[in-house]
């Protein structure tokens, strides 16, 4: 569970987040909104990259005052719009980075990596250098990085960016399997409404930094306000 309480962010005169509050209880939830709505800002605030008034809780534990790397150690995992694997490290080492600061025996950490690699069907490519992977494979490894170290919250920022329709479907199927693998709450930002509709139980819609709708994805997408703001359909008053 992840709870956002009155998040406020201003960049100069621009209000990027205006008292955004939401509680994500569903195994997989989404955040959508037009460009500049504040989706990535929300993710950056949750990650600790931007400090702002408001509170953030992971499983009822407040993390608002923690530094970014400490939030990761508290169970936050995230991917970026452009995947960020270290090219000169192997796939296995890219996963080990996340586990290095966490407590636990070397054997347990090895098992976690093996499990995560099996999840993305990468068991036989663990020693490949990240530089040798294509875009789709890099996205898969990015997801595997989010699965190790007993995560509480997994945030995926446009996990299907730059992928084909078929690859997007595969990533979607993989994300759907995450709740069966770990107990983390998954939060997805994506422009692909079809993907959000298919995999997210709940969805938060942002527009100009404000929350304009939050609830069951099907109901939210049918909301005239959402259609007006995000889908470009005129709101009928």
């Amino acid at each position, binding site marked *: 569970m992840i709870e956002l309480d009155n998040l406020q962010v201003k960049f100069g005169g621009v209000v990027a987040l205006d008292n955004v509050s939401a509680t994500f209880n569903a195994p997989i939830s989404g955040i959508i909104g037009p460009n500049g709505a504040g989706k990535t800002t929300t993710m950056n605030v949750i990650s600790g990259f931007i400090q702002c008034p408001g509170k953030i809780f992971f499983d009822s534990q407040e993390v608002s005052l923690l530094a970014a*790397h400490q939030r*990761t150690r508290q169970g936050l995992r*995230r991917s*970026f719009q452009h995947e*960020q694997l*270290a090219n000169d*490290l192997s796939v296995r080492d890219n996963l*080990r*980075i996340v586990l290095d*600061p966490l407590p636990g025996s070397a054997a347990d950490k090895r098992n976690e990596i093996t499990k995560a690699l099996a999840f993305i069907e990468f068991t036989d490519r663990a020693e490949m250098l990240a530089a040798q992977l294509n875009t789709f494979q890099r996205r898969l490894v990015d997801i595997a990085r989010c699965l190790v170290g007993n995560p509480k919250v997994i945030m995926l920022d446009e996990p299907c960016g730059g992928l084909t329709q078929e690859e997007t479907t595969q990533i979607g199927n993989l994300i759907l399997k995450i709740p069966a693998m770990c107990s983390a709450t998954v939060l997805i930002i994506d422009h692909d409404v079809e993907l959000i509709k298919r995999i997210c139980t709940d969805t938060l819609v942002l527009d100009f930094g404000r929350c304009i709708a939050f609830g069951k994805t099907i109901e939210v997408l049918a909301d005239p306000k959402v259609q007006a703001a995000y889908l470009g359909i005129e709101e009928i008053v």
Partner: protein
Amino acid sequence: MKITRSGYAGIAFTLALLILLPMLANGQWVKVFTSASCFTLAAAGVAFMYSRLGMVSLGQVALMGIGGWVMLRMNHAFNFPFEVNLIIAASVTMIFGWVLALPALKMRGLYLALITLMAAGGIEVILSTYRFPNGGTGFWGVIPSVAAPFRRPMIAASDSAYLQYVIVIVALCFALIDIHRRTAPGRAWAMIRRSEAAALASGVNIVYYKAWAFGLSGLLAGIAGALLAGSIGLLDAATFRASESIMLFALAVVGGARFWLGAVIAGILYRVLPALFNDWGLDADLTLIIFGAALLHAIITAPDGISGQIIGLTSKFKRGTP
């Protein structure tokens, strides 16, 4: 920890040097190779910072000066064994490395390079003003007449034995760098170089690991400076000018910052080539033209430096392709 092919090559290279150099080199050349080994170690420190973290430090030779100063100070002030003085000199320089890391926590790229260069300039002024201890009294320990004797390691009293001693220490330091590369610090550094945001999102404490890198680089510079002090028992401030730090960094790039061989090439270019020119009756400053051309060559055509080209050629040869 498994020894890699590069590791075996390094061990073989070290053994070859240990056997061949003292046999082939004589008189002044033993001192030249000892000095080249010390600068190889300093180049390795600056190269790993550049290749692993993408950070440019232009204060490495100045840090060597600190290591050398502490070594001479300890030698003339106390009666400790060489190894104890070496550890103290390395530790003090590591602390200076950490101090140098403070701006690195906020700065990157050109600004960080300039800060380290300014620090090198400051150290140059201090070393030029107060000079290196040579057995005098007081804190600075300088006497105008001849210097007091320097105590080398008991097992390496002669020049040839000392060269072998230095080669072994340099090889151990290369192993230390490689252990770092293959464990948690190396992974954290790789991620910091990729993106600091991604490193934070991976739970990496950026401040801690950047300071660690500067500390390790300082430690290596300190050992290099202390070993250099042991070569002739005296040091001259002119050796540690800020411009020398720039030169050493440039040569680390020319040699190839990613590989141990690159640091060896940098050490050879820095110390052996000028000595060779002197031996041939040529002006040693001519090497600066060669260094400039080599740097241009590295920047334009060989991002992994001469060592990258050598390793690339070796790989091609092994695959049987022309």
